[in-house]
């Protein structure tokens, strides 16, 4: 009877489940890191091709779907173009004033960051938007903790792990992510946290500070890891924290994760 049980499917499954349970509990990450490095190095080029091809397919699909709306959108865009031209003139003036102030306060302009551009090659397969993989790694000077932005100067996350030819970026929506932030309008300081794939929360804001819907949230630069002034998102809603000690705000990021193609890692700032 014993011998029969040892050769059954159930026995095999029990053994595998027990071993896996032990591995998950003990989590001997160091033991498997060499496998991870080799595997990620081997599949990274194929992931890049697959991701870029998928973006092209998605763009083609969006184009076909939008053919009917093109005329209306054209009219709307012409109007918006005119408005933006007027705004641009004002922005040029503001830029000039900014340069004068930067020189006076000895601040480092954004253009002086040393950036390493990389392609997005993979993302969290669970669909929670916790991380993406990019096509540059430690051989390109990328290290854990470096900030990652997109070209418009919007923060998307930090480097969580740098392999040889690829790196994992923990996105802002990752619940383990913690970024020191502040509002651009009132300077109210807090911490940006991800909420299990449901969005971003600006948390631990003092009750003496002011938060308004529509305020822009930027990095505060506290801690020295991330440069100050990088855009994160806009406040959508303000409420008291569950313990009633702080304010917290729901922050909407302008990012569309599914269409990310190229990101920039801030190596030096």
């Amino acid at each position, binding site marked *: 009877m014993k011998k029969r049980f040892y050769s059954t*499917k*159930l026995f*095999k*499954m029990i053994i*595998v*489940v027990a*071993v*896996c*349970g*032990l*591995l*998950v509990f003990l*989590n*001997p*990450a160091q033991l*498997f890191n060499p*496998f*991870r490095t080799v*595997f*990620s190095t081997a*599949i990274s080029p*194929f*992931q*890049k091709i*697959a*991701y870029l*091809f*998928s*973006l092209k*397919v*998605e763009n083609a*699909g969006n184009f076909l779907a939008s053919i009917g709306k093109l005329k209306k959108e054209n009219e709307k865009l012409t109007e918006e173009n005119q408005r933006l031209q007027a705004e641009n003139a004002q922005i040029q003036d503001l830029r000039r004033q900014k340069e004068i102030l930067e020189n006076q306060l000895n601040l480092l302009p954004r253009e002086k960051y040393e950036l390493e551009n990389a392609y997005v*090659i*993979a*993302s*969290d*397969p*669970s*669909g*929670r*938007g916790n*991380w993406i*993989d990019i096509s540059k790694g430690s051989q390109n000077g990328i290290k854990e903790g470096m900030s990652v932005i997109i070209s418009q100067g919007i923060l998307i996350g930090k480097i969580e*792990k740098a392999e040889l030819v690829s790196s*994992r970026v923990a996105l802002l929506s990752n*619940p*383990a992510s913690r970024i020191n932030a502040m509002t651009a309008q009132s300077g109210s300081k807090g911490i940006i946290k991800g909420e*299990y*794939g449901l969005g971003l929360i600006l948390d631990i804001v003092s009750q003496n500070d002011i938060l308004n819907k529509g305020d822009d949230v930027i990095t505060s630069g506290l801690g020295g890891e991330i440069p100050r002034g990088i855009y994160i998102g806009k406040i959508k809603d303000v409420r008291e924290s569950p313990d009633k000690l702080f304010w917290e705000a729901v922050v909407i990021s302008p990012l*569309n*994760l*599914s*269409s990310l193609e190229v990101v920039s890692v801030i190596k030096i700032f």
Partner: protein
Amino acid sequence: MKKYSIYLAVLVTALIIQSSFFPPLFSFRPLPQLVLVIIISWTVIAGFRSAFWRAVLAGFLFDIAFGQKIGTEILILAVISYLVSFFSRRFLVENKFWGGLVLVGFVIGATVLHRFYGEFMYLAGAGCQIREIFRVIFSNAAGSWLREIFSNVILFGLCFWALKKIESRFISSSQ
């Protein structure tokens, strides 16, 4: 040897498609689970004896590729392979229509179990209490569960057909 190389190539390709090809296409969450669907197909086609070790390998590569704790995906794929094998011996019938419905039932059950397990392990790993875990899991819109089930069923149809062709080629070449 050639057979095992092809199985490995199928798994690695599935991992690349799931991690890199699907995310931009499926901007709504969650993504179709290609690796899961392949394991279900193999279990039905090749039986538990062969499919089980492929499920273990698939889970190992999945954990390696996506930075999960080793054992996380191995566990659920092994359990799903066992359950599919267990129920297919009892419920699968020769009749194509009813047999097809039974297979769809396997995919639906496996999808729900896989998603529930994935959410549970993720939230538990993030330090959530049990009550909070169930609150977050059941606060997900029914639409997202239905979309995942629907996409997995479609994918299963394609994978089952393709993998059956591959297996029958191996069988005919070994004869």
